[in-house]
């Protein structure tokens, strides 16, 4: 039962990532694309954690934590650039 639920969840998160890529390509303005990138890295954390569960190893969790930190910094830098025209004033 757990393997089946894991496969269903992996499918759902992959469909969510595909919808994020659709918004990343289509998005009419720049903040839409930044928001799509933000959601895409959050879904990538989910996929990495699901990969770690299905392989039975904890090795990938540090990668997920690193993606969480770096993705937040990237989103803040891009939003700051969109608002001010420069990242560090």
């Amino acid at each position, binding site marked *: 039962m757990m393997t089946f639920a894991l496969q269903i969840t992996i499918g759902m998160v992959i469909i969510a990532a595909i919808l*994020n890529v659709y918004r990343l390509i289509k998005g009419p303005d720049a903040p839409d694309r930044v928001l799509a990138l*933000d959601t895409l890295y959050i879904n990538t954390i989910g996929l990495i*954690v699901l990969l770690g569960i299905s392989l039975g190893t904890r090795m990938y969790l540090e990668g997920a*934590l690193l993606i969480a930190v770096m993705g937040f910094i990237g989103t803040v830098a891009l939003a700051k650039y*969109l608002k001010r025209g420069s990242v560090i004033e």
Partner: protein
Amino acid sequence: MNPIAEYAMVALLLTGGFFSLVGAIGLARLPDFYTRLHGPTKATTVGIGAIVIASMVFFGSRGEGLEISELLITVFLFITAPISANFLAKAAMHMGIVPFEETRGNTWDQ
């Protein structure tokens, strides 16, 4: 594997997949940027938090002892999602992106 832990993990996994899918559908289908901001910042955060906590239940029930790195990821996501949403909304307002017609104006004083 303990059956109670297995049921809890299956429930957390399905909840997480459902909420992240709902957030992505909201990001793809809602009409303008300000409404689109709702999907990823709330639904996707809860979904990925549930998936990461399912991972914590899985590795905790194998008898290797509890570690807190998953809890660290969840807490970090829950802290940073509103901050990045606030930054993006301020950037969009600064760029002058017009809202959807039905959410324009002060509809509360009529």
